[in-house]
């Protein structure tokens, strides 16, 4: 049985100018101990779907799903109190901006121990020991001293390590890392990623890594889910995805990687992710897709089969070439 199973998740935001659908029928499945990456540009709804799972969206958001199950709990029916027993214990999350994600008014130690006090019956001294242990685990030197530090005294990388320590405090079954390295220096990024994957193997937890960086994905994860404009457009094992992307968007993303560039100029994807007012009628990627035809503009595609990476495309690519065009035409 999967640890996390989400079917047909949609999230709508009530805005001054009407409803805005940030997540549109997304499926996510995570197995125990698995490492899944969710990839997409900004605005592709990858963070929102995970925040919906955590129950962290503002009240303007409406969440609907056919299935939203974690470790046997149906998160749609659960009360707020029951959810808070799972959140921060079995599922925890770290965020993009480590510096602002730690509360400036409390020490690092206080914030880690607060989580322990909420979810365990540890005594004061046990909590202190566990906090020190966690700080060591995430590679923070002089843990006793750092526990007494305030967030503004730590660097960005240190803050993210502290955030990870806090997230690991209750030995979660699932850790969601929402662009954990985006705000950090390039040299620190690799360290944090290494730390996360190392900890994942060490503790056997599942890890969902949200990122917009395909390069990160190649080195670290097992399965990749590509999202575009609130929809899942492809899901594959990482090797297959890099060798043979089935959705034109994935292909375009991969082509834009510097290390894979074959031409002199780095290819880019023209245009931007559609916003609230310019959502196309048919396939959401059609305005930017180089293979798009009249059918793509008019009709919404349905996901392809497993062997085609569930590609959300009328003409899934095989070896870079669209298929099925002849039959459709």
């Amino acid at each position, binding site marked *: 049985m999967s640890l996390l199973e989400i079917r047909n998740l949609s999230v709508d935001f009530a805005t001054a100018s009407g409803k805005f659908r940030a997540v549109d029928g997304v499926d996510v499945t995570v197995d125990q101990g698995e490492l899944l990456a969710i990839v997409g540009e900004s605005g592709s709804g990858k963070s929102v779907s995970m925040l919906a799972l*955590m*129950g*962290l969206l503002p009240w303007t958001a409406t969440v609907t799903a056919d299935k939203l199950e974690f470790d046997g709990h149906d998160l749609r029916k659960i009360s*707020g*109190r029951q*959810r*808070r*027993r*799972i*959140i*921060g*214990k079995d599922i*925890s*999350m770290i*965020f993009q*901006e480590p510096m*602002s*994600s*730690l*509360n*400036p*008014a*409390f020490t690092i130690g206080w914030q880690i121990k*607060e*989580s322990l006090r*909420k*979810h365990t019956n540890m005594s004061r001294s046990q909590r202190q020991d566990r906090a020190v242990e966690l700080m060591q685990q995430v590679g923070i030197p002089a843990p006793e001293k750092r526990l007494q530090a*305030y967030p*503004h*005294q730590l660097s960005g990388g240190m803050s993210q390590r502290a*955030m990870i320590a*806090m997230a690991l405090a209750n030995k979660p079954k699932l850790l969601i890392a929402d662009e954990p390295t985006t705000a950090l220096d390039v040299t620190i990024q690799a360290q944090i990623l290494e730390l996360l994957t190392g900890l994942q193997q060490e503790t056997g937890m599942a890890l969902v890594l949200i990122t917009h960086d395909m390069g990160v994905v190649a080195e670290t994860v097992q399965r990749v889910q590509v999202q575009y404009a609130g929809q899942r457009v492809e899901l594959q094992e990482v090797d297959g995805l890099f060798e043979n992307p089935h959705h034109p968007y994935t292909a375009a993303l991969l082509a834009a990687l510097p290390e894979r560039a074959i031409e002199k100029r780095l290819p880019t994807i023209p245009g931007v992710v559609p916003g609230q007012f310019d959502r196309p009628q048919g396939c959401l990627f059609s305005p930017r897709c180089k293979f798009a035809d009249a059918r793509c503009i008019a009709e919404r595609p349905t996901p392809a089969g497993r062997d085609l990476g569930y590609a959300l495309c009328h003409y899934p690519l095989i070896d870079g070439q669209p298929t099925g065009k002849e039959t459709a035409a």
Partner: protein
Amino acid sequence: MLSFLIRRLATFIPTFIGVTIIAFAFIRLLPGDPILLLAGERGVSPERYEQLRQQFGFDQPMWKQYLDYVAGIFQGDLGISFSTKRPVLDEFLTLFPATVELALCAIILATLIGIPAGVIAAVNRGKFFDQALMSSALVGYSMPIFWWALLLIIVFSGTLGWTPVSGRIGLQYFFDTPTGFMLIDSLLSGQSGAFRSAVSHLILPTVALATIPLAVIARQTRSAMLEVLGEDYVRTARAKGMSPMRVNGVHALRNALIPVITVIGLSVGTLLAGAILTETIFSWPGIGKWMVDSIFRRDYQVVQGGLLLIALVVMIVNLIVDVLYGLINPKIRKG
């Protein structure tokens, strides 16, 4: 923290000097002969005039007069009230506890209601409770206090007859006041009913005086909370599974309090400086009423001394507030 303290003290001293200059200049700016104004006498004989002139040092050059005045301040010599013939400092010290008692009660009331109200309003932003609360806060903020106090008297003393109109305690009670705080002294006296009487005298002035700080604190708390609630660390706290109570009341409020404490501190300064209107209306024997009475009595030594002492109280309170601000704001404390 130490350098912060030193920097803060460095601004304290020039301000203090400025205040002494203003107090010193005050008596000399008044229309009329300052010597006679200080003595509170009129139509004196030339011999008496010369005697007074020497007594107040007006035969000296101006800078010498100022230095003597400042030297006097440091020896606690702020002149003598001509109407009571008592030293100004003594009078101040007798009356100050009454003001402190009233001001503290008012600020405690304002804080205890204002902060939770602001938090609840912010958490329920845009809903009915928020709108009702913020409308009342704006009414409170716009309230002419002297009128509000009169209304309270009309309703609670006049119509309902629940509370006395003025003073600190019923006339039938008579006891020593070792602390100067009527609530404490009435308990110490052991006289039955004395404490009740003290409380009932205190209620209306406290409510009147607390109104504006209450409105300001509620508004400030709400806006600070709204700012803080959008912060990433609030989301982190929720991601840790903390209850809304704890997220709003500990994680958010602790950060929102930093600006609110400043506002509270500054209003303590103003309230301690004498709630002029409230004390006058309720005949509360504090320094605010003392100042107003002295101005009307033309007891200018009292006005001069009181002005200085009151400014000093405000400055010291503001200094303490700044230090406290440093203590609760870790960025200043260690940074």
